[in-house]
């Protein structure tokens, strides 16, 4: 019954797939161009083959193979513990140079680099193939899903725009038709999110063995990353159901309005006018699912986390928004006339 909506979803997913494929192609090109420099493994192999470098191999009591490199000419000493799929733990001690900075800590994808300068010598600790938080994946996936949700978000208005004579003369109750259309779009939004995660994963494995962390904040990010675009979609769907051609303007301007309203809620109420604007914006923003998405903040241990106590409330609100706005859209759809 919702063949047309499935076609719309398919066409949009095709575009998403093309954009993601371009991203992957760019990643492949980058991988090829930096093949010589990128991997710590490459550095290890190059160091081992340098003349004068002494290489010794041992096995730690837990079975971990250890390689020790000693380069007297460069006064460089390196210990490499190979933990297999869990990556390598590399400790390099070498003379300090201008490139070395005091106590730096850098994470690039799954690679973590800690550098500590101690007078004339600098110790660099490199951990490869660490678990990559799904949070990072979901941030981009959420962005793509929100775009897809916005584009798809007027399935009923699109029918009202010149196709009601086809849509409403099918042997199916209006509510069931609307539910089917919304269902098709939900599948499309989730699929766009999944495709993005898949593309990012593929990009990552071009450079390293990818290990994804689904625990803690990451599982929360997945839940919020799925719920928020769906709630946003349902809001736009409800807003556009009774519109015909003008639904396009709603889809175009609502994201901008949401940003403006969100920004106005950040106004410091230093005057009566500012207080008024702030309060009005705050009330309006309560209807917007995006207002309930919080950016993870570092906790006292420096780990990223959502505000734990309110996360499930925010998630529940997203689900509630999706249900209520969808029901509102279906209710309005029952009243549409050709």
């Amino acid at each position, binding site marked *: 019954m919702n*063949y047309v909506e499935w076609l719309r979803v398919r*066409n949009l997913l095709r575009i998403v797939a093309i954009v993601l494929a371009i991203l992957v192609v760019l990643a492949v090109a980058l991988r090829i161009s930096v093949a010589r420099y990128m991997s710590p493994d490459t550095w290890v192999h190059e160091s081992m083959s340098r003349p004068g470098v002494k290489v010794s191999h041992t096995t730690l009591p837990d079975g971990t193979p250890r390689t020790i490199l000693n380069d007297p000419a460069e006064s460089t000493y390196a210990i490499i513990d190979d933990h297999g799929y869990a990556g390598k733990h590399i400790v390099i001690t070498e003379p300090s140079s201008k490139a070395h900075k005091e106590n730096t800590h850098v994470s690039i994808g799954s690679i973590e680099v800690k550098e500590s300068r101690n007078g004339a010598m600098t110790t660099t600790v490199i951990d490869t193939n660490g678990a990559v938080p799904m949070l990072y994946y979901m941030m981009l996936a959420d962005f793509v899903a929100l775009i897809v949700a916005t584009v798809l978000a007027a399935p009923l208005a699109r029918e009202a725009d*010149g*196709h009601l*004579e086809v849509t*409403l003369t*099918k042997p199916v109750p209006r509510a069931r038709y609307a539910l089917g259309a919304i269902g098709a779009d939900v599948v499309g939004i989730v699929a766009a999110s999944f495709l993005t995660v898949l593309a990012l994963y593929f990009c990552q494995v071009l450079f390293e063995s990818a290990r994804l962390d689904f625990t803690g904040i990451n599982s929360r990010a997945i839940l919020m990353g799925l719920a928020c675009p769906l709630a946003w979609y349902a809001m736009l769907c409800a807003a556009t159901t009774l519109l015909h051609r003008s639904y396009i303007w709603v889809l175009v301007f609502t994201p901008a309005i949401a940003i403006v309203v969100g920004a106005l809620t950040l106004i410091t109420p230093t005057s009566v006018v500012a207080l008024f604007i702030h309060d009005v914006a705050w009330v309006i923003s309560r209807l917007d699912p995006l207002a309930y998405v919080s950016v993870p903040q570092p906790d006292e241990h420096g780990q990223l986390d959502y505000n734990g106590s309110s996360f499930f409330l925010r998630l529940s609100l997203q689900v509630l928004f999706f249900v209520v706005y969808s029901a509102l859209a279906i209710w309005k759809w029952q009243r549409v*006339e050709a």
Partner: protein
Amino acid sequence: MSTITISNLRKLYGRIPAVDGFSLEIPSASVFGLLGPNGAGKTTTFKCMLGLARPTGGEILYDGKRLVPETFERIAYIPERSVLYDWMTVEEHVEMMRRAFRSFDAARAFELLATFDIDKRRRARALSKGMRTAVMVALAFARNAEILVLDEPTGGLDPVNQRHVLSLMINEAAKGNSVVFSSHQIGQVERAAEHIAVMDHGRLVMQGVVDDLKADRKIVEGVFPDVSFTLDGITSDARVARADRTERIVRLLVTGGADEIAARLSSAGAHGVRVLDLNLEDIFLYAVSPATATTDVVAKDISS
């Protein structure tokens, strides 16, 4: 075999009545033509029949039952304007219908599309107005529906394809299905329809079997020697539905007793009195157009 009963249908847009107390019985196994000038309420009537517009009052029954979503399995509809999805191919439209209706015959649809010389791989946006109509006709007639509601089904089609659509309609009626259609081309209605109804300003102004309407209604025309004449006793006859007088010429639309009234007109002093047959266009125009004469006009309800 389906009968459609419309009882006292009313549809207001704001305070303006688009359909105003319209009642009609559409018999099964026939081609039924709904005629009326622009804005008469034909399309609104169709929309109310199909639940696309909510009637302000009245009732529409299909074989005595109200319209429910399942009824659409039995009804095919061609709207007045193109409702095809511009971005979809013709083939995808066929697939859409196949998925929506159990009785849809995709092979028949492709056969009809081939008859209209439509390439199924083309997107709707690339089709001309006539081709779009042809696609909608093909989709409707492949439905194997018991009731076909066709709003201007030949709009934009060339004469050859117009005739083909009329043949399809007549074939459907021969198979026992009901075809209700509207058209501004009265020649088409006359060719295809057995029954007609004429609407004007949202009201039914005439209905009946086409042949009966033509047999019953005649024009009695006479010319008087000068402009000062009277029609006393003639225009008050119940069989005179309408009298138009222009200068010395008088034209009477009569619903019976044409020869007797012609004789009375001769007795009143008219010469060259003759009785004329009406075609459907004449009947339609008399039903919906205001009286044209300048004086002594008696305009009566032609449906009486």
